[in-house]
């Protein structure tokens, strides 16, 4: 009885809020013509964000795998270094990391591509989170599985390839998908080193046209178009790798 009342109440509140928000946003008096001249800039910004997202997604998986391997290597000093890296990267602001990466580190090695540096810094940042997700996944594989693999006569590499990784993939997919969505949105911080990505283009359009909402509203659609497929793909893969029927 109380459960039904509560769920009805929650449904009504959520639905009302949703309708209210949509109504307010939709009935605002927009001046789309003010932003129209900048639509190609917004589109090119979206494409740059797409490029950054795909490139750093791939690279961050490699970075994550590397630091997972380091932490699980069994060698104490490398494991300690990887641990320090993960803690420092996760515990400090991405904005500062981007600034240091571009103006200090990349500058010192004479690398001036803000897009390239941006992709690398984002990958290092996201890779630290991924390595924790991967490590947790590997450590959650029961001892009996490692023992069975050893008893069969598998080498360490075969154990990972045929026994551990296929099971880990399934376990880390949901958390990794969340991290990938964060990665896409975090790429907006690359404006500080003037990468002409999506958010940067919206900022410029706003500065030139004074049409704030008209400049920023497309971001909702644009970022959702990038993050939603990740979510769909993750669900699809989860189903494909399901083995507890």
């Amino acid at each position: 009885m109380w459960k039904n009342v509560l769920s009805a109440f929650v449904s009504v509140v959520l639905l009302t809020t949703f309708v209210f928000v949509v109504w307010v946003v939709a009935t605002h008096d927009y001046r789309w013509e003010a932003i129209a001249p900048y639509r190609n800039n917004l589109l090119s910004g979206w494409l740059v964000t797409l490029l950054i997202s795909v490139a750093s997604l791939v690279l961050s998986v490699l970075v994550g795998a590397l630091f997972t391997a380091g932490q699980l290597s069994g060698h104490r000093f490398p494991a300690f270094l990887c641990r320090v890296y993960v803690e420092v990267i996760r515990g400090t602001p991405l904005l500062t990391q981007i600034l240091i990466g571009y103006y200090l580190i990349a500058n010192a090695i004479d690398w001036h591509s803000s897009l390239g540096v941006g992709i690398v810094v984002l990958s290092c940042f996201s890779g630290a989170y991924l390595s924790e997700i991967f490590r947790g996944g590997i450590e959650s594989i029961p001892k009996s599985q490692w023992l069975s693999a050893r008893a069969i006569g598998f080498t360490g590499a075969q154990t990972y390839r045929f026994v551990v990784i296929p099971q880990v993939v399934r376990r880390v997919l949901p958390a990794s998908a969340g991290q990938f969505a964060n990665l896409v949105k975090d790429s907006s911080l690359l404006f500080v080193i003037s990468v002409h990505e999506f958010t940067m283009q919206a900022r410029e359009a706003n500065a030139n046209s004074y049409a704030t909402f008209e400049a920023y509203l497309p971001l909702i659609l644009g970022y959702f178009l990038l993050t939603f497929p990740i979510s769909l793909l993750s669900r699809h893969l989860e189903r494909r790798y399901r083995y507890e029927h």
Partner: protein
Amino acid sequence: MSIEIRGLTKHYGATRAADGIDLALDDSVKVFALIGPSGGGKSTLLRLLGGLEKPDAGTIRIDGAEVPQDEEALRLWRRKNGFLFQSFNLFPHLTALENIILPLVQVHGWKRDEAHGRAREIVARFGMDAHLEKHPAQLSGGQQQRIALARAMAHEPALLLLDEPTSALDPEMKAEVLDLIEELCQGGQRIILSTHEMGFARGSADAVVFIGAGRVVESGAATALFDQPQSAPVKAFLSKVMKW
């Protein structure tokens, strides 16, 4: 099989899982059972025999060949044998069939279709044909153990090592797995097992050893050990477990 164990020692921290085990079995023994209280060192001895653990001291010889020390040689030693644990032997992401094929192809270098044929043959022999395409989660505990046993037997191991193969099963499933193990014994398969099934040990094993606190308390022919135990701990243990 002839087994010769000398001064075998393995400690885990303060726990003396093997504390100077000496044992000799001659060639007439085909099925060898380890019995004794839980935590007494049966599993450890079995793992040392199978090359899954390295001893701190001592040697094991099986048919004259010493269980090696270095990791690569140990891996080759493990490949020759088949191993079955109490539970969770199978890989949950693979079907029953794939569980059996994988080691044949990846460890023993069989062609895939050969391995396929062999897996089907052995699974049919074990009465599990209907379950080939199922994942372990869809099988009962007893069915999982039978598939795991099929995997351990598929490459015709020189020695089959069973670590309390029925301890995690309910009575009905225990019986189906024990029937199958008995069949393997009848077929001449050489087996070393640790077990709490005293009836099975007595009926199927040629030799039995009682392990307690990491030491051999008593060993001998199965009938002799069960009918006329010599040492007080074995008498006490048997009178307790046979009471019900």
